[in-house]
């Protein structure tokens, strides 16, 4: 019954009434992203002001260290935060629909761990590999993690429940993380790795940002492209088929997009959990069930959260960096618990 009502709401006029609302929110989120970006560029151990930032952009003075810091360290880092935040949020949103699992997240389902595992292998055995190569490994690893998690959750035999997936994901993560820790301990790369694995943006340079940016943008565009299909898919398979949506193809594109987004962002910033879980849920609350609205909004919302978490991570324990992944997890945990709690409440009422 509920599903049908939802279909009606979406197919008929309900969305048109709220069009202005959607655009207003999107503009607001965009402005917030820009503000967060400037905040991130301004704040730092070396200190700075908006004036200097603007100066460094317009009248770049190569003799000034401050300008150099802003241009070569802070701006790429902030851009990296935007890319990673957007990528993980959209990946989470797609996974939640494609896997029919409201608790999907690249970190919880072992995808980040898979990517991290392949990166640690690449660091040890192909230490001369370029960053593009690392990214390739990372995407490949994301695929391994996904296959392992879904394979072991018993997907072939019965309907997968979100809880089974989370259990399988946590075991796959534990396994792959332990393997990569073991490898890195054996070959003495553990210091770099342990920091990176917990999700950190420190040390991002233009080079890495420039290499990953096109791929992440491609992934985001793909996600936007299938967003109306996702809306139909989210109403359940039967409805989607009867509405004439190419369910299989949508799933395939969705999975590929997720892997691309998750893999590239892990190669950029390490494993960050819970972001892909929180953002789509918040955005669905605000925007409703239409993915052509949820996905663009998630892009900005994810970027804002990452930018702000990174700023906090830099300030919390200055001059040391606190891994941004840890901060995001701390924010995400209550949310995760709340979601499982609420889900149970719904079950009971049925």
């Amino acid at each position, binding site marked *: 019954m509920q599903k049908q009502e939802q279909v009606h709401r979406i197919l008929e006029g309900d969305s048109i009434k709220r069009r202005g609302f959607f655009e207003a929110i999107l503009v607001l989120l965009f402005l917030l992203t820009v503000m967060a970006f400037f905040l991130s560029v301004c704040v730092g151990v070396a200190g700075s002001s908006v004036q200097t930032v603007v100066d460094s952009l317009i009248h770049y003075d190569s003799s000034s260290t401050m300008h150099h810091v802003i241009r070569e360290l802070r701006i790429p880092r902030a851009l990296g935060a935007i890319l990673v935040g957007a990528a993980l949020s959209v990946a989470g949103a797609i996974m939640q629909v494609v896997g029919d699992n409201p*608790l999907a997240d690249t*970190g*919880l389902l072992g995808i980040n761990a898979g990517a991290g595992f392949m990166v640690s292998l690449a660091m040890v055995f192909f230490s001369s590999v370029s960053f593009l190569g690392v990214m390739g490994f990372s995407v490949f690893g994301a695929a391994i993690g996904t296959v*392992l998690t879904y394979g*072991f*959750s*018993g997907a072939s035999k*019965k309907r997968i*429940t979100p*809880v*089974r997936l*989370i*259990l*399988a994901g*946590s*075991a*796959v993560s*534990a*396994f792959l*993380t*332990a*393997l990569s*820790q*073991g490898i890195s*301990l*054996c070959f*003495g790369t553990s210091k770099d790795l*342990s920091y990176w694995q*917990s999700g950190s943006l420190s040390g991002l340079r233009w080079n890495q940002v420039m290499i990953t940016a096109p791929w992440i943008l491609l992934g985001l565009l793909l996600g936007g492209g299938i967003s109306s299909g996702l809306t139909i898919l989210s109403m359940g398979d039967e409805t989607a088929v009867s509405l004439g949506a190419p369910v299989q193809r949508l799933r395939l594109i969705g999975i590929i997009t997720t892997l691309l987004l998750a893999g590239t962002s892990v190669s950029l910033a390490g494993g960050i*959990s*819970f972001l892909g879980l929180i953002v789509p849920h918040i955005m669905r609350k605000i925007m409703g069930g239409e993915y052509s609205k949820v996905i663009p909004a998630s892009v900005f919302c994810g970027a804002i959260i990452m930018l702000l978490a990174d700023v906090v991570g830099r300030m*919390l*324990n200055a001059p*040391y*960096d*606190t*891994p941004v*992944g*840890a*901060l995001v*997890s*701390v924010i*995400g*945990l*209550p949310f*995760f*618990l709340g979601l*499982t*709690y609420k889900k*149970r409440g719904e079950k*009971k009422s049925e």
Partner: protein
Amino acid sequence: MNKTSRKVGILVALALILLLSIMIAVNMGYSSVPLKDVIKAFFGIGIPGKIIIIRQLRLPRILVGALCGIGLALSGSVLQSVTGNALADPGILGINAGAGIAVLLFLVFFPEMYAQSMEIIPIFAFIGGLSVLVFLYTFAYRNGKLSVKFFLTGGIGMAAGINAVMLILSTGLENSNFQMVSRWLVGSLWGTDWHHLKLLLLYLIVPVLFLLCYSRKIDMMLMGREVAVGLGVSVEREYRVLLFVSVWLAAACVSVCGGVGFIGLVSPHIAKRLVGIRHCFLLPCAMMTGALICVLGDAVGRMVITSIEIPVGIVVSVLSAPYFLYLLNKKNM
């Protein structure tokens, strides 16, 4: 009767294997000591240098490993029986993490007290672990029933979140402490000595004996609530006591060797395969299996690459996580 003697036989065989693997583990290491010298060193004769290596470095470490294995395995067995959840484990449920963060907080706020106050650290760990468990219990307890699924998901979430908090706390530590903490977070026996062994014995002996004496009652409770009540067991209270004991066991182990996961998950399952589900056999068997896994895991970690040691937690995770997945795949959840 025949069955019972077979089970006793299995237990004796396990005990012998454990003893043997302890001997082998003593033998293995950076400077290898021939078995003859190992036995000599036990009795205090032979080359002084070797005696020191064996008596002061290797033996306590291996025994601590065995005790940790025992504690974690028992803790896991009890959790699995009480919550009726075949996938329960103090590591997966976040109890290890809760105990860990309590210890870490203590370390961060009273760094000068750490050295002299080893004795009270398990109590802090216990408080931490217990708070996680109480939280999980209230989280998953509704309509008079403990929901297995939400117990697990809540635990996984808690473990992830608490680990993140620990990471944040530990970045504020100075470098040498950070190294120690990060090692300890994955579970390592590095640097344990006789002092730790005594401490662990002190904290483990009472709950272990208690559980062994208690095994008949656990059996009764497993027959189902009605039967147990009929047999005169006050189920709710017993549940709480048992959960309490299992947290105590896990906390004592965590405060010494850090968060070694999966031992509490795997060993009861292996034990069930070997001796069946009656707790008077199951618990001792799980204890020995746990000790065996921990001792061998540590030995492997020291042997793989001679110059570096891989923490036992990593070895155990790599070996046991696939088993968890296998169980998950088999079980109907």
